[in-house]
């Protein structure tokens, strides 16, 4: 059987498949369907310090091969999470990563500070790229300076590794990713959703109450793959790739393009078993291709013209 394990340097994973934040609840929602311990890791829903109501509905609209959401980071806050959820996750033999949010740089630090005092967390993923909380999709990950500032503060605060989650809605991903790297980020994950909208022709209203939302799912995979490849080609720290991964082959595309791990998002909604199926499909592929260690294919994209 192929060895799927991945060493991110700061974190060893059983396999490169993490469940993406916001599409996997707090993890426990999937226990009726899959063995959570077979996952490389779980990134839980984004947490602010306090509970947060999120945006008004409708919050979802389908598009061709895609999903537009404007959840707006509804969540229970770090305290409820630490008391009610974390103890049940902490026992699992899988990496639990908390997606950290904040309305200010200080709030990110506050969340980390609080969580740093809890056990059972493997790393933080700084969500500086949610397009659903500020006007016009604004978020820190659109600017290298803002990215640098939050990451530096987070790294100073945190006793745990920090993954910075980046936005696709930028002109130059390498510049933003480098800002995160320089500020000490242990890894970057990308992409968060692509800023999008949809209109109901009958009512002439936006199909999301929030007007804008974030596009995810297979529709964005080619965009995500490009951004991951661009970032991975230029960074020293590991890149975690996501965006539209529905199958083992999709995940392999990201690894070949240079991602050291992947996250599975929207696919979990469509099929609660998706993450496990993806792991299985990668394992089968390694078997078929007689690849002993999956990590050997990372970044092996051959771009020399034939």
């Amino acid at each position: 059987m192929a060895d799927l394990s991945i060493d991110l340097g700061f974190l060893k994973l059983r396999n490169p498949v993490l469940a993406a934040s916001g599409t996997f609840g707090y993890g426990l929602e999937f226990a009726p369907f899959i063995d959570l311990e077979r996952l490389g890791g779980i990134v839980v829903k984004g947490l602010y310090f306090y509970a947060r109501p999120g945006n008004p509905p409708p919050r979802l609209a389908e598009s061709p091969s895609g999903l537009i959401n404007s959840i707006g980071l509804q969540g229970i806050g770090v305290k409820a999470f630490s008391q009610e959820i974390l103890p049940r996750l902490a026992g699992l033999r899988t990496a639990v990563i908390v997606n950290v949010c904040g309305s200010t740089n200080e709030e990110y630090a506050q969340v980390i500070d609080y969580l740093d005092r809890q056990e059972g967390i493997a790393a933080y993923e700084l969500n500086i790229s949610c397009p659903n909380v500020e006007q016009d999709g604004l978020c820190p990950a659109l600017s290298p300076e803002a990215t640098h500032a939050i990451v530096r503060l987070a790294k100073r605060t945190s006793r745990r590794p920090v993954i910075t989650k980046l936005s696709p809605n930028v002109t130059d991903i390498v510049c933003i990713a480098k800002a995160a790297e320089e500020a000490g980020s242990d890894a970057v994950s990308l992409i968060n959703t692509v800023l999008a909208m949809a209109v109901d022709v009958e009512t002439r209203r936006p199909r999301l109450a929030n007007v804008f939302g974030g596009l995810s799912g297979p529709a964005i995979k080619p965009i995500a793959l490009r951004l991951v490849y661009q970032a991975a080609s230029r960074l020293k720290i590991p890149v975690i790739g996501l965006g539209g991964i529905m199958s083992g082959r999709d995940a392999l595309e990201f690894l070949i393009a240079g991602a050291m791990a992947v996250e599975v998002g929207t696919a979990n909604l469509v099929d609660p078993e998706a993450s496990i199926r993806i792991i299985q499909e990668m394992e089968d592929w390694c078997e078929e291709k007689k690849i002993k260690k999956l990590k050997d294919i990372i970044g092996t994209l051959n771009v020399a013209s034939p």
Partner: protein
Amino acid sequence: MHKDPGAPILRKERWGDYCLLCLKSPAIAREARPGQFMMVRVSDQPYPLLRRPFSIHARTRETVEIFFSRVGLGTNILAQKKTGETLDIIGPLGKGFTTGGGGSKRAKEQEPGRLAPAESLNGKKVFLVGGGRGIAPLYFLGLELKKQGAVPIIFYGGKTKSDLPLADRLKAHKFALLVSTDDGSSGFHGFASAMVEAELNRVAGLPMAFPPLDWADAPRKSRPVRAASYALAGFPARVFACGPEAMMRKIAALADRYGIAAEFSLEAIMGCGIGACWGCARKIRRGDKAEWLKVCQEGPVFKSSEVVWEEDKTNEVSDR
């Protein structure tokens, strides 16, 4: 809660834009309670992407049924499925209607938030109000209530006669059935909510708010059913409703006026159906707080007092 990736379609019925699929799925059937729903995968391709939610319309030991109307891409694809094909379904999901009993012990334990029924419905009259495809969960509910000794009276409304494809099936099961159509082509002439109002006013001995003239003129054949259905005098012990938002809002106001406990099965666009995405949020009042709750997990059935109807949507969410 089970995922059944290959539930075979054992039976299919089509009436114009309405369709019924009977699926073999013993594990889901065993746990199903009235008002719960399933997430149905429409295509194994990425388009359309999301599963579609459908109420459980009926169940036997081995099967579950869904009853739906064709409104868009997903329901059109589903309506083309043939007997023998299989569907990938997840269920039973959510919290169902509050009935006097039923449901496995396990199912109840999984629903700590569910209020225990205030009273047994045995021997009591209850109203079930379904508008259009909203009838779907009420058939299952009606059968369950009958088992518990309640006397369900079904109000079934549609735009026109062809929107009432289940009327025959309901009659065959000897439900007391009152039908209405917006255009008067069958039964009461008007909205289902007006029909309920007329009936409640009648029980209250009040002049009817909307004098249901057409009601009296209803075709003979619908009247005997009506006559048979009023063995029990007085107000219903509970109202259960599912249908268009405007209909449910009206029913809620009526129930409120007469102090009758009411429950509603709400719709919301759903991403996952299992509480993982926060996509199905709806403003729900609990205590003196209104929050965005997940319809798929805390609902889809909510009590009258909990629901913040679409009209009131501009109210601030309390903790915001």
